[in-house]
């Protein structure tokens, strides 16, 4: 139950920070948003990674949702063809990249947090000895 709550919180905060990153126009901030969540929220790394991966995708979908009805899929399809790519993969690729940035950021964040905690513990143990 506790895990589920932590995952939900991670996801929600991840979506909020991810959306804010997209609003800034600097897509790479998705990495930072994932890392921040990874650092500040403590849960099992795998759950955290999955939650942030999903959060990145959700933030992206939320961001472009208003454009979906305006012909975005057709536009992305056409642009994909011009760029020499399969026109169908461009839109999913965008979402996957957002998810990967957020998820990878989360991995780095949680690793930093755990490494810091391990180091702190080691220092405390050394002091105690």
């Amino acid at each position: 139950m506790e895990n589920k709550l932590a995952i939900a919180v991670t996801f929600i905060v991840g979506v909020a920070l991810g959306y804010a990153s997209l609003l800034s126009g600097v897509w790479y901030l998705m990495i930072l948003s994932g890392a921040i969540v990874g650092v500040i929220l403590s849960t099992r790394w795998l759950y955290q990674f999955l939650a942030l991966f999903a959060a990145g995708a959700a933030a992206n979908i939320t961001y472009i949702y208003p454009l979906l009805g305006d012909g975005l899929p057709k536009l992305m399809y056409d642009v994909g063809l011009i760029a020499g790519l399969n026109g169908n993969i461009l839109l999913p690729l965008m979402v996957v990249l957002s998810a990967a940035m957020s998820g990878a950021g989360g991995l780095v964040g949680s690793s930093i947090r755990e490494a810091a905690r391990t180091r702190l513990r080691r220092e405390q143990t050394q002091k105690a000895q």
Partner: protein
Amino acid sequence: MASSRGVYFRLGAGLAVIVLIVLIGVFTPLITLLNPATGVAQNAANLAVVNRHYRVNGLTNTATIIQDVNGVYHIYASNNHDLFFALGYIQAENRLFQMEVFALTGLGNVSTMLGSSYDSYDRFWTTIGAPLTAMEDWERVLANASVNPTDNLTATALEAYSEGVNAYIAYAETHNTLPFEFKLLGFKPFSWTPVDSFAVQELETTLEFGDDGLIFALLYHMLGNQTYTLIPTFSPFQSYYYAGYNGPPNPYVLAVSHNTYPVNSTLAYMAHRVAEEWDPLSLSMLNYFLNPATHSNEWVVSGNRTTTGYPILVGGPVLSFSLPAIWFQVQLVDPTYDVYGVVLPGAPVVVIGFNRYISWTLTDTQAISDGTYFWDQAVKGGEYLWDGVWHPITQYHINGLTVNWTNLGPILYQNGTNALVVTWMGNTYSNDIGALLNIMKAESWQEFRAALEIWKAPYQNFAFEDNTTIADISPACYPIFNSTAGLPYNPSSIMPGDGQEYISGCIPYNMVPQVVNPPQGFIVSSNQRQVGPAYPYWFGNTMTPSPGFRALMEVNYLETHPKVSVQDMMTLQSDNYTDYEAALTLPYIIRDLSNNTNPLVMKALSQLESWNYEMNTNSTAASIWFYTYMYLYNDTFIPYLYAKGVLPTYEDVINPSGMGGSFPGTTGLSSMDVDLAYIIMTGNPSPFSNKTLSELLGEAVVQAMSYLESSHPDGDYTWGHFYGFNFPSLLGVPSLSVGPLPRGGDYNTPNDASGGGPPSNWPSGGQSWTMIVSASNISDSYGVYPGGQSENPASPFYSNYVYVWIKGGYLPLYFIPSPTLFPRALVDDTVTLTPK
């Protein structure tokens, strides 16, 4: 320890993914393109059909832009400045990428956007002087604006238009809605200036650029005086000249036309090199302007021959197709203007259209060498020789190139002390934008004609109608050639550039081809020669652009239909596939072959005898006619050209086939289509072939039938398998192109363009804007262009008109004087621009 290793492994994995994504961003445009906030996704915002409100710097009052249900923009403003500002804004919203491609092309700089593969384009435009002329045109307009009302109006319009374009660029940059092509190319749009508009207008002028003079010289080098048989000065068929001058050829004009300057090997070498490099075919990478075998239609019928009692004007300029199309359809309304029509993306003037008093349309003129004249001039050590005196060559450094000019124009090629120089009338100062701005508000023929007096190039026929008047005029600076030696050399070829021959002025305005309310009650000006052989000025030959059969068909229709309606005109323009050359010559062919017992010939004749000359998609006889004609053409002329050495020596620039070059990879010479028809009707193939016409015809029919039956063994070789249209995207991306789509017609019909056979060779040109305006009620006007208003391929307005056009359909042209009177049912969306 194990836990620690896991942490570092996860850290490494996360960093690896991040590094990978960053590397993708560094080495590919993918991250830039796919960025949800700034990438191409935001271009979908422009696809939304919603009312929009923009606060912009530069406007003085509110301007309202209504897009009607067909996609046409109706712009309402309270003054000229705001009207052209709004036009610039809305055009940029729909066509910014195309506009910048156009401007860069006209300025000889398109390779900076599209890459080095467009270098030949840039060299072409730069060398012929287009960017220099665009800059000089604007400087002269600006300099005269305080004293010349037309220049003042031009400056106002161009500056306001530029402000509007730039206001949209600023908006799009802020909102990340620049056309996705900019994002794909990593190109930042430049700020629009009036020079860019003149550059776009220059592109229209280059419709007229041609290398006919070089081709004629090469033919003359090989054929001598037989060139005049191959390229006759006057057509033996043409009997209708809209501006008159019927009668025997003017002896002086004929003497000039048959007095060609000797073309020695050096001159032929230079002509060949230049033709190789500059022939429009090799420059047709962008799908605009440079299609060498496109023609246009226009006719106007007086009230006493229409069912309403008022004139009807029909326009059908034939240009290369592209998506987005060359036209953008608007209505412009302010206290000065209330005009409807099509504008070029990048120039704020209605080129073809109507207001509540008049309507007008344009076609290319026949003959007169495309306004491009070539000279053989001596040059040495940075000087050129003229009248026995050496003068310094003027050098221009532009677009990284050095262009050398003599008094006659730019040097195209230099071989030792010999230079080939071109005088291109497109470099003549001509405020075409000002002329069109005045036409747009003209209320009578007098005002219309007066407005065109400053039109110097390109060579165009302007058809006109108002309630009581029909007229046509071909305004331009048509040079008058003189010679100190007496008789000038033929301007259709290369001329001596030593001062002996010179341009002494232009044909006076009251003598350029023109007619008002002719007694026959109609005027047709569909690229046929405007003036008869008796015209006292040299006016070119039959070489380009049209053999005239199309115009003859239109004249014949109007002569035989004493009362016509708008519906009749639609039928004639878009649903009449009569090949008039077939109508003229097929009876002779059938008679000649009547005794031929070859089974294939008999089979062909059985179909041709009952054929109505209509190039319908479901006609097998049409296919037989086309291929018979094409093989007859080849069998008659190609051996001759080989025998004379024209082929293979010049096959890279002279590689003709019939019907304007309708076989793949070939070019057309209108004269030779005229020649072939004449051969068929006279039965005499001499001097081109030693065979009899019967022999040539029999062989051609057998070739045609063998080809058709082998390519379609089921016998279903209807014309729809061989003819139709392609609509390529601007940059030639197949997935953004439309077609091939079958449609009737051929080179000799109003729906004309050269091409045929495999779908890849179907024409990508045709009537680029079909417009019918009834003077009885301008609300009863119709038009369509094959394309769409938006350049965004995901827009419903990208190619929607193509599907109307391909069926020969029309859309109503809603001419609505104010936004408050706009019927709600006709409104798609509204854009409101207010001052910031």
